[in-house]
């Protein structure tokens, strides 16, 4: 193969690629290709997002007035439960790791695939199966326990708790297998010259996430299994009527579910590190600190679950300890935000769609994280627990955080996935709608919560009407933004302008492939470079792509920019 051909394979647009490598339903349904699995996951989780999003819009419409009666109380309860369960278990936990991580991780490492491709496919089918059970629950008696399944109500209710918890159980295993796969892949399949501290930060965050998935999710598994046993044969562990303890359920449940929120946010933060670096064309500031902060968040996240139980009647000593440790988790998150800002300093910032999402993230996650402080402090938490303040807080971090970062990441890697560019203007319009709609939806909820509006209420005191109405308007704007973004992306995948391997001058290894990548990812030896050395990148006109300095034709090679110190 001539040099020109190799360069074309590395950085060009590829008409023969992983998408058309083999055809037919079976070639997708039984694929072992991490890229195809990532695409399938992306379609799946987006569907879950849209379904649960519709539920949210129904809820918000119902809440337009203080006692609308649009939904019966029972139906309202089912709606918020299913919204939560589908969003948490079927959308947000898998979202970034399974959809984007699967696609990007092996290529970032310079590998041909993940360590266990069949396990990867199994993960996907477990996701399908688990989500299927959730839908079965929906279609049968529904679910009205809240996504948290607190006992004894979840034992007593006649809704389809067993189907739903079994669905969540299966989804848990999907998550565990993804975690195992990523952890082993990062450990054993890095490029020979890629030491731990030459990995892109997205991989650090996926690694930390994998640790959490592996350690925490099995505890959810046993908790849900015990709940199922409780319902089917009445083992009596959580049921006070049989001598059990409902607060024990809460402890078991949150022992997983708190680390789970770090599963949701860490990959998002990893994406933001990538986006900020690439779109400022600057090495990320404080690489080591950001890398370690991911691991610190993962580990500290296991020690704070009790802050969901401050009002549950647990002992005061334990309450104090959990509050103290909860504050400690704030530090690594803050460290990341400051480091991102420092990266912007003296950069060359391109405000394209992914970057707009990254900046939105800093704003929205900033609010989300800071409002966590109100909830970590004991005296204020007693007032704010189980009010809309909590609802607003977690939506700011999950939607304003994870979803925003995911959209940014999807836009960022879309040209790599499909070899076609999205309409940047419309992409930014979508970002604006998401940002403004989101703020309008959830900011009033902070105020409502502080004023004492409890959560999970189908009807409420009239003093809160105006807040709910702003919130509802915002929800529809947010929904429109999400839908617009999805439309822009799908259109781009089908009809977008073709692009080459590295349109944005990314320096990590996934940009050293054609767009879309070939089946094997790398049809050429992979050359290791520092993933944040943008000074090494040069625009090659013949290829219409950014390439590493060494790949450019010798006579066209420009002078190197002075190295960063």
């Amino acid at each position: 193969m001539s040099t020109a051909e190799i360069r074309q394979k590395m950085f060009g647009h590829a008409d023969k690629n992983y998408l058309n490598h083999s055809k037919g339903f079976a070639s997708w349904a039984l694929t072992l290709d991490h890229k195809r699995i990532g695409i399938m996951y992306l379609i799946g989780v987006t569907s879950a997002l849209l379904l649960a999003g519709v539920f949210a819009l129904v809820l918000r419409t119902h809440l337009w007035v203080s006692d609308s009666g649009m939904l019966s109380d029972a139906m309202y309860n089912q709606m918020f439960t299913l919204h939560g369960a589908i969003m948490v278990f079927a959308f947000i936990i898998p979202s970034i790791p399974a959809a984007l991580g699967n696609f990007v991780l092996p290529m970032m490492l310079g590998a041909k695939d993940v360590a266990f491709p069949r396990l990867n496919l199994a993960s996907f089918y477990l996701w399908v199966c688990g989500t299927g059970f959730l839908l079965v629950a929906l279609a049968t008696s529904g679910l009205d326990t809240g996504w948290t399944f607190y006992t004894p109500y979840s034992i007593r209710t006649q809704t389809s708790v067993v189907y739903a918890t079994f669905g969540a159980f299966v989804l848990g295993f999907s998550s565990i297998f993804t975690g195992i796969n990523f952890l082993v892949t990062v450990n054993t399949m890095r490029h020979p010259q890629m030491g731990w501290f030459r990995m892109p930060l997205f991989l650090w965050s996926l690694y930390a996430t994998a640790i959490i998935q592996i350690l925490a999710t099995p505890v959810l598994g046993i908790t849900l299994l015990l709940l199922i046993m409780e319902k089917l044969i009445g083992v009596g562990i959580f049921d006070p009527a049989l001598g059990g303890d409902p607060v024990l359920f809460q402890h078991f449940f949150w022992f997983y579910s708190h680390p789970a929120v770090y599963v949701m946010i860490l990959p998002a933060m990893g994406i933001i590190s990538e986006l900020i670096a690439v779109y400022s064309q600057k090495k990320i500031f404080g690489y080591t600190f950001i890398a370690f902060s991911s691991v610190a968040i993962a580990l500290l996240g296991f020690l704070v679950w009790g802050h969901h139980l401050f009002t549950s009647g647990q002992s005061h000593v334990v309450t104090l300890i959990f509050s103290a440790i909860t504050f400690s988790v704030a530090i690594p998150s803050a460290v990341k935000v400051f480091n991102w800002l420092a990266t912007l300093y003296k950069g060359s910032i391109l405000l394209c769609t992914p970057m707009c999402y990254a900046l939105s993230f800093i704003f929205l996650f900033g609010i989300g994280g800071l409002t966590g402080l109100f909830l970590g402090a004991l005296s204020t938490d007693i007032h704010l627990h189980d009010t809309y303040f909590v609802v607003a807080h977690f939506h700011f971090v999950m939607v304003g955080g994870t979803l925003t970062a995911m959209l940014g990441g999807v836009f960022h890697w879309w040209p790599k996935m499909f070899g076609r560019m999205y309409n940047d203007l419309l992409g930014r319009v979508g970002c604006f709608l998401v940002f403004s709609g989101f703020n309008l939806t959830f900011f009033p909820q902070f105020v409502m919560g502080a004023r004492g509006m409890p959560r999970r209420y189908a009807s409420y005191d009239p003093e809160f009407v105006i807040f709910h109405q702003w919130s509802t308007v915002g929800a529809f704007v947010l929904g429109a933004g999400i839908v617009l973004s999805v439309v822009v992306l799908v259109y781009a995948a089908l009809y977008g302008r073709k692009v080459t391997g590295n349109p944005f001058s990314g320096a990590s290894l996934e940009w050293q492939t054609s767009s879309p990548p070939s089946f094997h990812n790398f049809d050429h030896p992979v050359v290791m470079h520092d993933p944040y050395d943008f000074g090494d990148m040069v625009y090659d006109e013949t290829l219409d792509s950014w390439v590493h300095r060494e790949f450019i034709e010798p006579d066209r090679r420009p002078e190197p920019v002075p190295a960063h110190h």
Partner: protein
Amino acid sequence: MMNFVNLLIAQQIPMFPDAEKHPEGAPFWFPPRAAAFAGDVDFLYSAIFWICTVFFIGIVGAMCYLCVKYRRRPGVGPQPSPSHNTVLELAWSILPSILLVWMFWEGARGYYETQQIPDDAEKIVVTASQFSWEFTYPDGDKSTELHLVEGRPVRLVMESRDVLHSMYVAAFRQKKDIVPGRYTDLYFLPTRVGKYRLACAEYCGEGHSRMRTLCQVHPDDQTRKDKTIWIKAKYMPWKNGARTFNMNCAGCHGIKDDTKTGPPLNQKWGEMETLTDGTQVKVDETYVRESLLTPDAKIVANFSNQMLSFKGKLNDQDILELIAFLEYLKSGGDPAAAGEVEGYVDPAAVGSGEATTPVAGAEPAK
């Protein structure tokens, strides 16, 4: 829109609002402040709010500024700059930590104060069920609303008939879950007369959002007596407790400091008891309930494990009445005053699972 802005600015900036002008606090951001410690909560909330606002404006301001100043211009690449600075990292880790420590401390202190229940607090029993509230006052009368007296500390002993609930009075900034199978405590010291919302704050099923009632603070006891809609009790709880005691407990437990098979109970209430394994436990509602239902869990030192379990024989109401009796004895009451009264409930009917709540309307003989 402008009206709203005026509304915001005119009254409700949550920064240590003028206590003279707004004795109830900052009405837009917070519910009225109607109990001791509510002011502390609001203070901490406001403090955290302003600290966060400063940081947030700093972060977002810096972000916007940097994005404008260093936006991509054709032909201009990024300028060389350091990619790490350990001093800076430590600075922006440690300095915020100090603020966080303060926040934790203030929150913990405030919380701790709300958990110190004075001994003379009025005890009101709260029974939560799907989807209503029942409050039992010390004299046995009940109400579906919570009626308190300004300045009088109140201790709520809360139980649930079915699933998890939570008692939340936003005006008091207090909340506690109500867990079936045990008692949980909550302490208020109401400081302002008025009507406030009492809501269930733990999802409990279909009617969860209907489980709202009123908490009213009265200026004095008499007003409370007059203004409340009472469900009158036929007898004081301790009297039926006395009868239940005679039927079930008196064989082993004396009430005149006499030791029988079990220890005497007349002075036990609220005291610390030493167990066979050397640990100490307070004789409170939880301990009495546990002793009745699973007596072998804790054995008093120098006694042996002989007590029967009354699970299935005594219901929640009986247990509360027994507790009332123990409290009565501890406060020096004479058990002989029980006597026979109209509306006497046959203890043989107790334990059949039927409710023994008295019917409203009959005149109590107290």
